[in-house]
């Protein structure tokens, strides 16, 4: 035990000596050739077919196959596995690159109704998808000032026409503020959904951004103006070191407000953030093995005075920023964690003035390199990417060779990418879904929604349509709330819809408003959409006279028409769905193509990955 403590203290000291990390990428170019060779070896060792490997890669390293995007299927010429390896590595190399396409698209959506008396501010849905924290905050403050001034004028007037006019103006302002508040909050949700829908195949950057955003969950209901670009901050730092990411999160106003650390000061300590920091963000320990209740108070004291300030870099532009308030910091010597059964003591000496912020940074560095943090995050990443978390895998991930002193996140991702557990199909047969040769896991609701829209080749321009906006708003009732999950745990890894009885209704809901013209499938070299697609299906139904022909038809559609490989069992359900669709086509109560989509995407094979 003594040797372990000394080793840990030495490791922490070495790490702290170079606390300014270099710019990091998830895949530095110098490492690419060796990683490519390892990845290719794993792909070639798999017993799965190239088509299965493509779908598996898209499911595990992204949000499912987007059938109309590059690399959806193995190429007909050249080495398919080399092409897949190169695509995966391209996406990994660009993982921390912010894609602004979805933001711009959402920001271009025009609101159909503008409330009377509104200021010329945000009156469009998802206007704030392209906004930043400074913009959202400045906008709300402007409302606050206008409303306060107007209220004074109203109160000073006697009852009469002039007062009524001002009151009407005030009501309009209030309505606009309401819209703005809702839009800022909803933008955080739709940003997550749209990025998942629009991301490339095997887009590991989109997947990891969502993973870390959920791990460091904030609720945009509470943090509102501060959460609008929180995801972008995370994406920019998720390829560096964990201590850097952890510190950036701790200093971000969205987290400071969400878990109340912005108000914590000497003599009035708030423990909320400190508790979740250890229970969820780092140790993952809810059994008090590595810390005790006094350590929760102690950590909160170390982080007291960490709050928010409002800078004004240019007149009229207000910018919320992190600020350390030395006079509000509980600057006493503290020894933490020594009383816990497995605790490794950390002593923090007082540091006067602005430099006192280093005490908190030292604490976060300690947490980022702690063995419990390593095991917690290695386990979560393993369950996300591989679907399971074998002890040996966790041990290796948590070792110094992989984790590094401060949590080398890029190296950890690369470690998982070339693990045989991810690619070698023979390692785990799942008897619950015959034919599957990987560890299968349920998709989360976000993964289900994103992969469904991707499977039917929903075009980018769909996001600019009112039906998409309405559908996204309606997803609240389905509990799909990335960016709006109240508890600090974030949403669970798995399909919560399965247990809540929503599994049968999500697909019809998701496609209820989608015009059939927005759905298109390929039939060989021909693109079918709308009426042509429905006619094609009707002809297929009439051309399948017996059960064998009907099953063959289903398999053909699954593998070729919708180009969604590996959807084996859907072939049994596709033909009945087509027959039903053909019947319904007569009265047009349900667009046949939607019926087909429901049957395909509600299948158990699609619900898992």
């Amino acid at each position, binding site marked *: 035990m003594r040797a372990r403590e000394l080793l840990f203290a030495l490791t922490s000291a070495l790490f702290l000596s170079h606390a300014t990390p270099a710019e990091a990428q998830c895949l530095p170019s110098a490492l690419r050739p060796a990683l490519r060779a390892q990845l290719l070896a794993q792909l070639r060792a798999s017993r799965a077919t190239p088509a299965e490997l493509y779908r598996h890669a898209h499911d595990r390293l992204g949000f499912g196959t987007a059938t109309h995007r590059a690399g959806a299927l193995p190429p007909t010429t050249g080495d398919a596995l080399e092409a897949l390896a190169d695509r995966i590595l391209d996406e990994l190399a660009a993982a921390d690159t912010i894609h602004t396409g979805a933001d711009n698209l959402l920001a271009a959506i025009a609101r159909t109704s503008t409330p009377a008396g509104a200021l010329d501010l945000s009156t469009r849905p998802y206007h704030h998808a392209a906004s930043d924290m400074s913009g959202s905050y400045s906008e709300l403050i402007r409302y*606050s*000032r206008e409303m306060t001034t107007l209220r004074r004028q109203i109160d000073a007037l006697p009852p009469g026409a002039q007062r009524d006019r001002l009151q009407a103006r005030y009501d309009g302002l209030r309505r606009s*503020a309401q819209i703005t*508040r809702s839009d800022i909050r909803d933008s955080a949700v739709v940003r997550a959904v749209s990025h998942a829908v629009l991301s490339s195949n095997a887009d590991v950057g989109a997947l990891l951004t969502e993973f870390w955003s959920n791990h460091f969950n904030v609720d945009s209901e509470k943090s509102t103006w501060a959460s609008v670009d929180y995801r972008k901050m995370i994406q920019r730092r998720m390829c560096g070191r964990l201590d850097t990411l952890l510190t950036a999160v701790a200093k971000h106003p969205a987290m400071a407000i969400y878990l109340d650390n912005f108000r914590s000061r000497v003599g009035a300590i708030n423990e909320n953030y400190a508790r979740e920091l250890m229970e969820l963000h780092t140790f993952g320990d809810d059994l008090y093995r590595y810390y005790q209740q006094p350590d929760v108070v102690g950590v909160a004291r170390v982080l007291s005075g960490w709050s928010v300030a*409002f800078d004004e870099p240019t007149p009229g532009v207000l910018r919320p920023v992190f600020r350390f*308030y030395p006079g509000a910091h509980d600057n*006493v010597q503290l020894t933490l964690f020594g009383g816990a059964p497995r605790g490794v003591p950390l002593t923090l000496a007082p540091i006067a003035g602005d430099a006192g912020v280093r005490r908190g940074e030292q604490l976060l560095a300690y947490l980022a390199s702690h063995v419990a943090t390593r095991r917690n995050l290695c386990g979560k990443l393993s369950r996300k990417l591989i679907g399971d978390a074998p002890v040996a895998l966790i041990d290796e991930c948590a070792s110094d060779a992989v984790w590094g002193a401060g949590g080398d996140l890029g190296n950890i991702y690369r470690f998982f990418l070339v693990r045989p557990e991810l690619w070698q199909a023979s390692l785990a047969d799942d008897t619950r879904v015959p034919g599957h040769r990987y560890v299968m896991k349920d998709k989360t609701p976000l993964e289900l929604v994103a992969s469904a829209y991707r499977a039917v080749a929903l075009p980018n321009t769909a996001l600019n349509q009112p039906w998409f906006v309405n559908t996204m708003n309606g997803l609240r009732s389905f509990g799909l709330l990335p960016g709006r999950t109240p508890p600090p745990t974030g949403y669970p890894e798995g399909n919560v819809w399965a247990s809540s009885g929503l599994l049968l209704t999500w697909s019809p809901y998701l496609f209820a408003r989608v015009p059939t013209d927005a759905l298109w499938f390929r039939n060989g070299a021909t693109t079918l959409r709308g009426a042509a697609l429905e006619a094609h299906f009707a002809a297929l139904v009439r051309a399948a006279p017996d059960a064998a022909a009907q099953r063959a038809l289903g398999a053909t559609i699954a593998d070729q028409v919708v180009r969604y490989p590996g959807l084996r069992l859907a072939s049994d359900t596709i033909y009945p769905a087509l027959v039903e669709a053909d019947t319904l086509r007569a009265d047009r109560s349900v667009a046949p193509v939607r019926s087909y989509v429901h049957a395909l995407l509600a299948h158990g094979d699609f619900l898992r990955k």
Partner: protein
Amino acid sequence: MRLLMTVSALALASVACVAEVPPAVDTPAEAPVVRRCESTVVRGAEPIEHAGPPVAAASAATSADPCADLRALDEVTEHIDALGELLEEVGDESP
């Protein structure tokens, strides 16, 4: 009226600094913290001209006076809380 009180509170936070806090160097971990800056927050007294953040306090260099820090943090805390209450007051927009 609650909304008025909320927005009024944005600029009414004040801290009365009555003495300096001595340096806490080598203070035992469990020693009680002695605070000599008394915080007094007055809410909802009168309407104000505008409801802005305490920009000057935030952008100023750190003061040697710990009470100035506490006062600035009090103002920021009140401001964030009041803005949150304002947003809660204006309500949610149903699509």
